[in-house]
């Protein structure tokens, strides 16, 4: 295609005029409207009720997972917010609760038992069996050594004063009952709940 010098200048001028008009707001204003709000991200996400892991207030939370609980979907945690139906917090959360998502996904989060042997400088990942056996062994050793069956007056007391237990705050009534029974049936007296920490 041959373009004369004059023709080239004409085309350039026309282009400049058109783009100036466009830049001033006439160009494609209709198409530019495509103003959609961000799609609501939880429409069909799997919603799970739970209790906040932090303090003893035990706020109800809703955990939203990827997928709709289909067998082949791995429901990684997508979002966490307050449970509006929970009588404790009625949907509200404190700043820690509001940031729970980053606790779940924190690289520093403990996801398996770790063990630092006496004298060792580092923690090593161990199995649950190892951890529970180790705790049970130590508890039994200590209890066998320090259990007080009778006081100085000869009355049966069945006390175990040298080991204590601190239970979680985010327990249901049923969990709390079972926890209490386990601790007390061992004779454990030093027993408290995070609710008072």
């Amino acid at each position, binding site marked *: 295609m041959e373009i004369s010098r004059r023709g080239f200048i004409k085309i350039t001028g026309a282009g400049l005029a058109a783009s100036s*008009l466009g830049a*001033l707001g006439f160009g494609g204003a209709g198409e530019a409207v*495509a*103003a959609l*709000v961000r*799609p609501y991200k939880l429409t069909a996400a799997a919603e799970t009720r739970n209790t906040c892991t932090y303090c003893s207030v035990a706020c109800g939370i809703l955990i939203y997972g990827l997928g709709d609980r289909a067998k082949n979907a791995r429901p990684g945690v997508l979002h*966490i917010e307050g449970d509006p139906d929970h009588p404790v917090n009625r949907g509200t959360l404190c700043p820690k609760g*509001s940031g729970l998502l*980053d606790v779940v996904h924190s690289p520093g989060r403990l996801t398996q038992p770790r063990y630092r042997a006496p004298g060792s400088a580092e923690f090593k990942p161990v199995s649950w069996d190892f951890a529970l056996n180790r705790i049970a062994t130590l508890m039994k050793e200590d209890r066998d050594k320090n259990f007080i069956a009778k006081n100085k007056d000869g009355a049966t007391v069945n006390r175990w004063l040298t080991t204590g237990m601190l239970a979680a705050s985010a327990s249901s009534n049923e969990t709390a009952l079972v926890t209490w029974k386990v601790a007390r049936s061992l004779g454990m007296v030093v027993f408290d709940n995070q609710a008072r920490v």
Partner: protein
Amino acid sequence: MTDLQSQDFIRISASTTTPPAARNHEVEVAKLIDVSRCIGCKACQAACMEWNNLRGDVGTFQGSYTNPADLGPHTWTLMRFTEHENATGDLEWLIRKDGCMHCADPGCLEACPAPGAIVQYANGIVDFVSQNCIGCGYCVKGCPFNIPRISAADSKSYKCTLCSDRVSVGMEPACVKACPTGAILFGSKTDMRSWAGERVEDLKGRGFEKAGLYDPPGVGGTHVMYVLPHADTPSIYAGLPGNPAISVFVDVWKGVLKPLALAGLAVTAVAGFLHWVITGTNEVEENDDRSAADFIKNHEGVAK
């Protein structure tokens, strides 16, 4: 193409498109921030980041509870803490949740030159449409509250959306839901104004005679309102403007200069066309060529 009628918008930036007008009964929403009930816990800040998938870089301590130090592309709402000494010499710790006010007459939208980059929905929310944003920063200058921030990473402007995605499905914004003291409320603008009235009465009964609702008329009212114990001096709350209005420069630029420039362009185009019709193009005739050749011959060597 998107059904524009379904968007329920009032206006869009840099456009002459007429907004849909038949469906005029959408509920105007509002967020009411009761400064007197806020304990500064920042749950709203955390909830905002969580919902909107924002994570800023960890900053450094600036000597204030205000953290981070300023709004930013990753901080759409910010608790601003002010240690204020009142007339009787007592310390008042003023805490204000800063963020977009969602003005009825938005200065950002007024100033924005990018078609469709800022939209005002019929429910009152002023939203940024990032895909249309050109990152020029006019919205920052146009905003009477100094809210929008340009991201250095993608050169787009960001601010609070009033969780337009949540509100569009009938939910409250994330900050409102999280607030443990009920200092942030959400509902229709009418309800929020009447609830604010009750709060103001209550505060007045507790000795805050100047308590009042902050819903500045200079920007046509806002969809984020404050209950202030000292409504006579909003500026003590971390520089909340007393009588915010769209900058006169925005009005001059958009109201006078831009139409003038458009008229100038149009007049030039029309004049050119008329000149072409009446006088026609400037033809080169035979004697023009001849006189030019003579001119060159006569001046040969002169230029050298």
